């Protein structure tokens, strides 16, 4: 245990900048039927979507706030702006964007990363997608990567077939909220047999203050197809809270491979309440790779429904909770078919008074024979002020299942830090190396460029409180 009371903080200054933006439309603060109807009208949506939103609003208003997880009592739904439209439509060329928006994404390195690593990039600024582009060779193979609003216009049949089938508004209060006021998000469609071997990336930026961002993402990977979708998110630091409540639905058809990576790095005033769910059909593979670094409170439990025989699911997550942060994260795996396998690996780090919670569910339905499932969660505490707790739920209804559950709570020892320092490594770097080592399993699931990026984010700033 490091008892010279060092405090560790990530350096957020790189992401903390605000752009003076002239929005084309700003909804009145607060949430009511008029706001929902207005959003649908501005988007010129089909009647079924408008009805869907209004139904969801009813559900949202009726459902009580969750009484578990983190402290949600300070969210003031009336003080938030639910819709902020920055541009008239999503562009396919960065140069067509208003300069302040283009500059924002340039400072975040998105266009450069697009050139280097990605098969396609989407960028959302407050409520709307402002940029979307997919490489020509992928488009030629029938890969669709666009924003959800455009998809609703251009591929209404596909959207209507799958939209909200995995996560209906009735699922939970924040899924209902998202359903009522959703805007932006990504739509990915990979046709049968097409393997997209470079990742597609979406970047979500909140710029405005007291803002609600409610993107909605739908990913459909047809038989034998493959895709890796990655998302990142940041926001400037304000003194008032914002809310990010997304819904993600991902479908991997027979033999398909769908991987979804998130590096969530919201500023410390964002409530991040996200519902993510995936279905894996026969012999398909679904992977969630989930890093929660920022936000004030995150409640997020990506789930995997293994609905076809031989399907595989993997969830690997890492959570950092620093000062004033609570990461309440985990995942759910539901085995509904025989010979399905799953693996959950969760790593959490609490420092400087932060709190991490692992909340996980493993369910094996009756008749889902020969299931193999493992859950492992490791927590690391950097100091005495920080906290971690674990709530694993196991519901095993088939006796042929082989399941394992391992959990550990560790502390960084003063001796460990001293050992590295005795080799000439400065204290902050020694801590970073120990932390990076702790999350090595996670880093291995990322493309190399992102490990470098993650290392930069995790490069801890050290200040010695006793001095």
């Amino acid at each position, binding site marked *: 245990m490091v008892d*010279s009371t060092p405090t560790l903080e990530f350096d957020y200054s790189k992401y903390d900048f605000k752009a003076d933006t002239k929005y084309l439309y700003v909804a009145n603060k607060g949430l009511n039927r008029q706001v929902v109807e207005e959003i649908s009208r501005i988007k010129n949506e089909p009647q079924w979507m408008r009805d869907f939103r209004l139904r969801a609003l009813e559900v949202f208003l009726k459902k009580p706030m969750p009484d578990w997880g983190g402290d949600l009592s300070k969210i003031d739904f009336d003080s938030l702006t639910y819709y902020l439209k920055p541009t008239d439509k999503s562009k396919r060329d960065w140069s067509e964007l208003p300069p302040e928006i283009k500059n924002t994404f340039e400072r975040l390195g998105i266009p450069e990363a697009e050139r280097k690593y990605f098969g396609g990039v989407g960028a959302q600024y407050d409520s709307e997608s402002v940029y979307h582009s997919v490489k020509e060779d992928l488009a030629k193979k029938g890969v669709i990567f666009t924003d959800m609003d455009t998809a609703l216009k251009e591929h209404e049949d596909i959207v209507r077939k799958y939209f909200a089938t995995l996560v209906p508004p009735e699922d939970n209060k924040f899924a209902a909220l998202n359903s009522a006021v959703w805007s932006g998000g990504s739509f990915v469609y990979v046709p049968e047999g097409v393997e997209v071997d470079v990742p597609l990336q979406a970047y979500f930026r909140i710029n405005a203050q007291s803002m609600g961002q409610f993107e909605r993402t739908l990913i459909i990977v047809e038989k034998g197809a493959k895709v890796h979708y990655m998302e990142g998110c940041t926001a400037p630091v304000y003194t008032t809270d914002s809310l990010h409540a997304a819904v993600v639905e991902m479908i991997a058809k027979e033999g398909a491979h769908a991987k979804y990576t998130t590096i969530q790095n919201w500023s410390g005033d964002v409530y991040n309440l996200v519902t993510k769910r995936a279905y894996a059909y026969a012999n398909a593979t679904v992977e969630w790779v989930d890093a929660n670094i920022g936000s004030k409170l995150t409640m997020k439990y990506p789930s995997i429904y293994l609905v076809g025989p031989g399907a595989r699911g993997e969830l690997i997550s890492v959570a950092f909770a620093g000062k004033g942060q609570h990461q309440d994260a985990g995942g759910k795996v539901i085995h509904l078919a025989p010979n399905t396998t799953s693996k959950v690996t969760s790593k959490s780090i609490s420092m400087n008074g932060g709190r991490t919670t692992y909340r996980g569910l493993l369910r094996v339905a009756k008749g889902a024979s020969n299931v193999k499932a493992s859950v492992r969660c490791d927590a690391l505490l950097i100091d005495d002020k920080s906290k971690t707790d674990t709530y694993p739920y196991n519901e095993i209804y088939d006796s042929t299942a082989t399941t394992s559950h391992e959990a550990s709570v560790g502390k960084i*020892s*003063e*001796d*460990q830090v*001293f*050992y*590295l*320092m*005795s*080799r*000439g*490594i*400065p*204290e902050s*770097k*020694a801590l970073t*190396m*120990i932390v*990076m*080592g*702790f*999350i*090595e*399993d996670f880093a291995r699931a990322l493309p190399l460029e992102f490990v470098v990026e993650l290392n930069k984010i995790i490069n801890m700033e050290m200040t010695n409180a006793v001095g």
Partner: protein
Amino acid sequence: MSMPSLLKITDLHAKVGDKEILSGLNLEVRQGEVHAIMGPNGSGKTSLSYVLMGHPRYVVTKGDIQIDGQSILTLKADQRAKLGLFLGFQYPLEVPGLRLGSFLRTVATEVKQDKTPVGQFYAGVKKQLASLELSDDFLSRSLNEGFSGGEKKRIEILQLLTVKPKFAVLDETDSGLDVDALRLVSNAVSTVRGPDMGIILITHYQRILKYVRPDFVHILVDGKIILSAGPELADEVEAKGYEAFKGTAPVSTQ
């Protein structure tokens, strides 16, 4: 060559918590010299090595440690390492997920400002591993995690070879080694021994001293050196045990 560096420990008192564990220790080590320190369990040998390296749990209450006339007491361990101090740990720590290979590379670039290209660097490391009869597989394993006691000691020596410090404290590097490993480690220490390195060899056995002939042998009891002499003292300790020396008045080395 220029004047050899001098590590000078004067009237060193240190405590951990409320307990005094070093009580007036004096020692001078020049680059190029090998000093063996022997002493009963709990006499303060490891404590001395920690205090030299700057472990935050150990508080110096009196006395000084200087390198070439400059006190190092206010420096943290990493800064002391950069000045040329190295400690081979009696119980090396495990760091899960930190690969030995990348750790060594960090150490080389951090301490030695080593600019050797990656490929060449690892080729060199692999040769050193081979000389310690360790396979290349160790490079991709987590630092010390699951290593046997003897493997950990050999990895300490591998780090010594990477760092090539001015002053190395080797705390019972010979404990827990089998006969063959002892020979390998001794050979490795002998190869780095030379005018550029001062070595403090903490040991319980004269076995290693047969391979690495010390210039001086010191007996440490109750937190201070009570007797210093030439290599023959090690044989005497082996024959008579420590009781015979207790009560002896402190004798300075030089």
